[in-house]
């Protein structure tokens, strides 16, 4: 059970990270630490650097200064210790669903084809895609594609799961279903999750802690420690007083960041 967070040492340490695209600074001394098994959400309006932050965590981007360490080791994109679920489903369109899920295992080359297939089928079953294993991705709906992407990342059995607005393109109902499924999987598998979203409800419903990002390069605007009890479920969690209290706080934070964004944009116009 991964319900108790903040146990043991730090899993992921981001220390004094500086990063800029050319001359545009995005982070100017950002520090965060994440505990093993923690579900951390990062919330912020678009353009505030969420994707950039995740790319720094995964090693696709390198910080100009400062360090990103997973259990004391720097991260490379090819590391098998983390899984990445992207903003839009990035299944390989020429591979069937199960072949997509097998992809990482095939690259690692440690299992026989039969073992790979077995494991891939296990995770496909977990995300509710049993029976669709031979479909090409174009024949899956958007929600099913994101499930398959999730299964593809989970099949690597990563310690750290990075998710970049994975359900952003889904309709509200499908998104709520996917949120419940994700919590169930996380409960079962116990990875550390860094989850990016611009949806306040989603951030509260899922996480142990919510970080609100400020406009670049200002870093973290606010940290909210989420004490909503687990296990969570739609009808009780989403109607709890605490949920509404958090929601009110976060709406207020986001509107402050958005107001600042408008002000900065207006200043740039002049």
């Amino acid at each position, binding site marked *: 059970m991964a319900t108790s967070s903040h146990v043991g040492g730090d899993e992921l340490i981001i220390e004094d990270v500086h990063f800029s695209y050319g001359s545009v600074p995005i982070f100017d001394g950002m520090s965060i630490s994440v505990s093993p098994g923690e579900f951390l959400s990062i919330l912020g309006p678009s353009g505030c650097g969420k994707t950039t932050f995740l790319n720094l965590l*995964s090693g*696709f981007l390198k910080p100009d200064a400062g360090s990103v360490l997973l259990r004391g080791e720097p991260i490379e*994109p*090819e*590391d*098998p210790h*983390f*899984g*990445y679920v*992207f903003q*839009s489903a*990035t299944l*390989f*369109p*020429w*591979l069937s669903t199960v072949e997509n899920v097998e*992809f*990482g295992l*095939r*690259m*690692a080359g440690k299992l026989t084809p039969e073992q790979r297939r077995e494991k891939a089928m296990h995770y496909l079953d977990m995300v509710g895609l049993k029976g669709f294993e031979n479909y*090409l*991705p*174009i024949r899956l709906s958007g929600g099913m594609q994101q499930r398959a992407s999730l299964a*593809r*990342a989970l099949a*690597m059995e990563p310690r750290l799961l990075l998710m970049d607005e994975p359900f952003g393109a889904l309709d509200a109902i499908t998104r709520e279903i996917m949120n419940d499924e994700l919590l169930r999987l996380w409960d079962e598998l116990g990875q550390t999750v860094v989850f990016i979203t611009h949806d306040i409800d989603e951030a509260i419903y899922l996480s142990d802690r919510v970080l609100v990002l400020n406009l670049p390069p200002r870093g973290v605007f606010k940290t909210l420690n989420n004490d909503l009890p687990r296990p969570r479920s739609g009808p009780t969690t989403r109607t709890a007083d605490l949920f509404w209290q958090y929601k009110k706080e976060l709406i207020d934070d986001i509107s402050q960041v958005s107001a600042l964004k408008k002000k900065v944009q207006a200043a740039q116009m002049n």
Partner: protein
Amino acid sequence: MSVVAKDAVSKNKSRVYIPGFSWSWLSIPSLLVAWMLIATQFPNYILPQVWEVAEEAYDWIADGSIFGHLWASFLEEVGGFGAAIIVSIIFGFMAGFYKGFREYIVPLNGLFMAIPPIAWAPLMLIIFGIGYTTIVVVIFISAVNPMILTIMEGVLTIQGSEIRAARALGAKRWQLFIHVYLPASLPFITAALRIGFSQAWRALVAAEMIGATQGLGWMVSMGGEIGNSRQVLLGIVLIGGVSYLFERIFFRRLEKHYEVWRIQ
């Protein structure tokens, strides 16, 4: 009620549409009929009848000489087109990967494609003399340029997001090439094969008419020189037939097969 309605619909359909019938079955027969009608207006040493060309074919098959010519053309196609496949895959991928190389090679492709391949034949004849090498070089020049461009376009369409997804799943450099770049560009490689084959075949026939002592193109030009219009027509039929068989049936099928996942 609904049964009646259904019946009416299917009856209505059958009036305009016979299942399994396609107008394409008429194309070749109507061409043959037109040929036969036109041929009645000419003496047969100028425009022979269909069956006279068929007799000619029988003679060439019976004495086995047709196979030598087919084989000669086939070997030239394999040499020139085969070399074009290898070179275009290497150059096409390089042009897709490296902007500098792309900028350098694209104008050259355009320049070579503006020159009809047969224009190279006299020069190659001077350099290599009559025979295999001359023809293979002309085929190569005409096939390789459009193939490089097609493969390059394919590599350029590959999404950065697919590459990042593969890397996050642990794919190393060479694995990216084998498991992402290659399959993602297969529809374009097969399109390049089809385009390259037809370019190569055209160039082959043209080059054989100038610089060969055998092959299908030689059959046609020699037939013209000795005034044997039956041989000329037989050559034309074979040239068209072989091309149709490979281009329309083999390569197009191959392309369709690898295109399934692209249709959105």
